[in-house]
C-alpha cells in the first residue's frame, strides 16, 4: 500500500468553516468512549462537563471569567501565528506580566496611593509580558535561534523567578510562611464590571482587543503586512517590509496581551502574588487560537468553548471524581483533530492498494 497527498484545486469554503465543528464532535465521541472505558457513565459526565456549568448564572459567570484571559492571549498568539511564527511561551509572558504589575501592588501596599494603581498595574503587566516576549524574538532576529524552543524555555525560567519572589522578598510577613504575598489593597484590584460577580474590566479590554484586531487583520496595511509575511516572507521583503521588524512587533503584541492577562489574573482574581500561578492559560490559548481559525471573532467563540472545558473539567472532578488530566487529554486531541481537519480541507489523500488504481478520499 502506498499513500500520497495532493493539494485540492478548489478547497470548499463550507468544509473549511465546518472543520473545527467536525473536530469538536469527534473529540466528544472519543471522549464518551474513554469515559466509558474508565467505568463512568458518559451521560453523567456529559452533564457534569457541559450541562451543569451552563445551567446557572454562577457557571456562566465562571465561563466568561475564564474565557477572558484565554481570548486575550489567543488573539495575541494569532498575530504571531499569522506571521507564521510560533510563540509557545505565552505562559511565561503571562507570568512576567503578573510579576511586573504585582511589583507595583506590593510597593504601594498600605500607602493608600489612589485609584491610579490598578490601571498602572495593567500597563506594567503588558510591558512585562512584552519585554519577555521580545526575548525569543530578538534571539530569532539577531541570532536565528529557534523561537519555539527559546520561548518555551523562558516559561520555566520566569516561573522560577516568580517562585523566588513569592517565597522570598514579596512574601507576606504576617502570612505564617505561606508562599504568597499579602492581599492587595483595594486600589490594586481591578473593579468588577457587574457588582458581585467575578467579571471585571479585563473582559471589556478583551472585547476591545478582539474588535480592534478584527479590523487590523481585515482592513489595515499593518494586518496585511503580517499576513503577507506569514504567507511568503520573501514577497513581504520585496514589498519593502523588514521581516525582522515584523517578528519583533508581533512578539511584542503577543507578549503584551499575555502579560495583561497575567496581571489581570493576579489583580482581579487572586488579589495577591502566589509563588505558583500555573493556570496553563498560555498553553490552552494555543488551542483557542487554532480552534478560532486565527480569526479574532472566531477566537472569541473558541475561548468560550475551551473555558467551558476547563470549568466542566473542574466540575467533573468534584461531581464524578474524574481526574482533571482528562481535560488536557481532550484538549490535546481537539488541537490534533482541528489541524487534521484543516489539512483535510486543503489536501486530498490518495491510497494505492498494491499495483492497482488509486482511490481518492
Amino acid at each position, binding site marked *: 500500500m502506498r499513500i500520497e497527498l495532493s493539494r485540492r*484545486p*478548489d478547497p470548499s469554503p463550507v468544509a473549511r468553516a465546518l472543520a473545527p465543528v467536525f473536530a469538536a464532535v469527534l473529540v466528544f465521541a472519543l471522549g464518551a468512549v474513554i469515559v466509558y472505558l474508565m467505568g463512568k457513565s458518559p451521560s453523567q459526565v456529559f452533564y457534569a462537563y457541559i450541562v451543569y456549568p451552563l445551567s446557572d448564572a454562577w457557571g456562566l459567570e465562571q465561563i466568561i471569567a475564564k474565557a477572558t484571559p484565554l481570548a486575550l492571549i489567543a488573539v495575541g498568539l494569532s498575530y504571531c501565528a499569522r506571521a507564521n511564527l510560533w510563540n509557545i511561551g505565552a505562559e511565561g509572558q503571562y507570568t512576567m506580566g503578573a510579576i511586573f504589575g504585582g511589583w507595583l501592588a506590593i510597593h504601594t501596599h498600605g500607602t493608600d496611593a489612589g485609584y491610579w494603581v490598578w490601571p498602572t498595574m495593567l500597563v506594567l503587566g503588558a510591558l512585562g509580558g512584552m519585554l519577555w516576549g521580545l526575548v525569543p524574538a530578538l534571539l530569532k532576529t539577531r541570532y536565528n535561534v529557534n523561537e519555539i524552543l527559546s520561548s518555551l524555555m523562558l516559561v520555566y525560567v520566569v516561573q522560577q523567578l516568580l517562585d523566588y519572589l513569592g517565597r522570598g522578598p514579596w512574601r507576606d510577613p504576617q502570612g505564617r510562611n505561606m508562599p504568597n504575598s499579602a492581599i492587595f489593597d483595594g486600589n490594586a484590584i481591578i473593579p468588577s464590571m457587574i457588582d458581585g460577580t467575578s467579571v471585571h474590566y479585563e473582559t471589556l479590554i478583551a472585547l476591545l482587543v478582539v474588535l480592534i484586531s478584527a479590523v487590523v487583520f481585515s482592513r489595515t496595511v499593518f494586518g*496585511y503586512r503580517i499576513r*503577507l509575511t506569514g*504567507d*511568503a516572507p520573501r*514577497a513581504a521583503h*520585496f514589498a*519593502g517590509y523588514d521581516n525582522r521588524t515584523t517578528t519583533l512587533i508581533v512578539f511584542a503584541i503577543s507578549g503584551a496581551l499575555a502579560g495583561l492577562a497575567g496581571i489581570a489574573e493576579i489583580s482581579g482574581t487572586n488579589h495577591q502574588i502566589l509563588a505558583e500561578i500555573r493556570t496553563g492559560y498560555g498553553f490552552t490559548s494555543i488551542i483557542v487560537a487554532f480552534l478560532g481559525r486565527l480569526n479574532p471573532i472566531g477566537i472569541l467563540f473558541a475561548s468560550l468553548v475551551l473555558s467551558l472545558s476547563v470549568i466542566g473539567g473542574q466540575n467533573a472532578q468534584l461531581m464524578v471524581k474524574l481526574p482533571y488530566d482528562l481535560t488536557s487529554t481532550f484538549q490535546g486531541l481537539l488541537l490534533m483533530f482541528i489541524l487534521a481537519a484543516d489539512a483535510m480541507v486543503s489536501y486530498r489523500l490518495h491510497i*494505492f492498494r498494491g499495483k492497482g488504481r488509486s482511490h481518492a478520499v
Partner: protein
Amino acid sequence: MADSSLHMPGSSAPAVENTVDDTSPPLVELRGITKLYGSLAANNDVHLTIRSGDIHALLGENGAGKSTLVKILYGVVEPSAGEIFWQGEKTVISSPVEARNLGIGMVFQHFSLFDELTVAENIAVALSGDWSLTRVREEAKTIGETYGLTLDPDRGVWSLSAGERQRIEIVRCLLQKPNLLILDEPTSVLTPQESERLFETLNRLSAEGCAILYISHRLDEVRRLCRTATIMRAGEVVRTIDPRRSSSREIAAMMVGADIGEVRFTAAADNTREKLVVSHLFFRSEETHARALNNISFTVHAGEVFGIAGIAGNGQTELFDVLSGEQPTSPGAVIISGMPVGDRGIDERRKMHAAFVPEERLGHAAAPSHTLSENTLVSRKDDDMVRTGFVVFRLARRLARRVVSAFDVRVSDKDPEARTLSGGNLQKYIVGREIIAKPELLVVNQPTWGVDAGAARLIRQSLVDLSREGSAVVAISQDMDELFEISDRIAVLREGSLCPPRPTGAWTKESIGLEMLGQGGEGVSP
C-alpha cells in the same frame, strides 16, 4: 497549415545516420493516455511510439502536457486512463523503481538531486539493487571516462554548476544500462558548448541502441539531433513528424496552433540620459552557498533594453537583489536617475519610478495564498491604495482588473488566489503590474522562464515597447534567444563578474557561449 509544406527539402542534414530499428515491436508504445487534474485534462488520449535507437523529440509549449506524459512513463504520475506497452507487452508502471527496472532512465529539468549529499550518494540513492558506495564510485568513473562525463564522487552537490549536476543525473541513468533515456529540457541550463557535448553523448547512446526521448522547446537543436518528433498542444498530440524535414518556424506554428509572430523591434530611441549606473559593485550575501558579486560596472540609458546573459547560479539573483534594494550595498554602487541609492530600500527606489520583477513568481513576486488584488499591494502601495494605514481594497481590485485585461491574464475567478494561476498567466500579471505604471527603470530577472510562447511574446513585446517610450529596461535572462530578440546591448555575467557590454549585433551565439564559459572557451575540452 497545409501538409505539403511540412516536407520541405533543404533542412540541415542529420549528424548521424538513422539507426532506428523498424522491424521488431516498438520499445514502448503509449495508447490513449489520459490524465485528469480535476476537470482539467493535462493529457488527453495521447498515443506515442518510440523505437530502440531512436532520438525522439517531444515538442510543445509550456503547459502542453509534455512533463505530465513523461512522468507517467517514468511512474511518477499515475494515468487516469490508457495503456503502456513495453517491448510489445502491456505493462503498468506504478513507480519510478519499476520504470528503472524496465530500463527507463530520466534526467529531470529541475534535477532530482540532494544538495547536502555527495555525488556518489546522489547516484547510489537512485539505483535499484545492492550498490555499495565503493562500487558506485568505480562504475561512475568508468562510465564517466567512456562518455566524457567526469565527476568528483566526493564533492557535495551544492558546490556544483548546473552542467555538472546534469552529468550526475545522466551518469545515474547510465549505470542502470537503460533502454530508454528521457531528458526534460536538458539544454536549458547549459552553454552552447556544453550542449554540443551532450549531443555527442546522446548520439553515441543512440548508436548503441538506446532510445532517447528528448523534451525541448528549442527547435534548432531538435532539428539537428532528433529523427522523430511528436508535437503536443493543450494535452493532445497534434502530429508526429520528421523534424529534419520542417523548418523551425513551421514546427513552432504546430506547437502554438497559430503563427505568433516575432517581437516588433525598432531601433533604440537615441537617448543618452543615464537611468541606471552601477559602478564598482562588490557584494557578498549572508546566505549559504551564495555567489559573491565582484566589481560590476555598467550603465543603462533611457530608451534601451540592456540584456544580462549567463547561466543560472552565476550571480543573477544576487545582482537583482542589489539592484532592487532588497540587499543594501554602498550608496555609490547603484545610481538611479543620478541619485546614489545603493543603501536605500526597495520602496524608496520605487518612489523614484523604478520597478522590479524577480525571478521567482510565487513566493517572491507574489504571495501564493493572497488574491491578485491583494498582490497588487506588494509593489504598489502608493497609488492612493493606502490611506492613513488602511487599505482601500476597492482601488486594489480595480488595479488588478486593469492589469488582468491589459495583459490578457486568463483567470477563472473574479479575484483568484495567485497560486491558482498557471505560470504564464501569473508572469503576465506580475510583469503587467509593474509596466502598467510606466516605470522609468524596469529591472526584470528571467522575464519568460517557463512561460508559454504566447505569453512570452506578449511580455517581450511589452518590455521593448516600454523602452521605446523612453524607459530603461534591464533584462537578466538565461534564454539567449530571448536576449537576442529584445536587447539593444548585452553583457554576460559569469561567476559574479560582468564582461563589458556590446551591442547585440556584435555578439554571436558562439561568442556569448564562450564568454559564459570564461575567455577563449577554456574548460570546453573533454
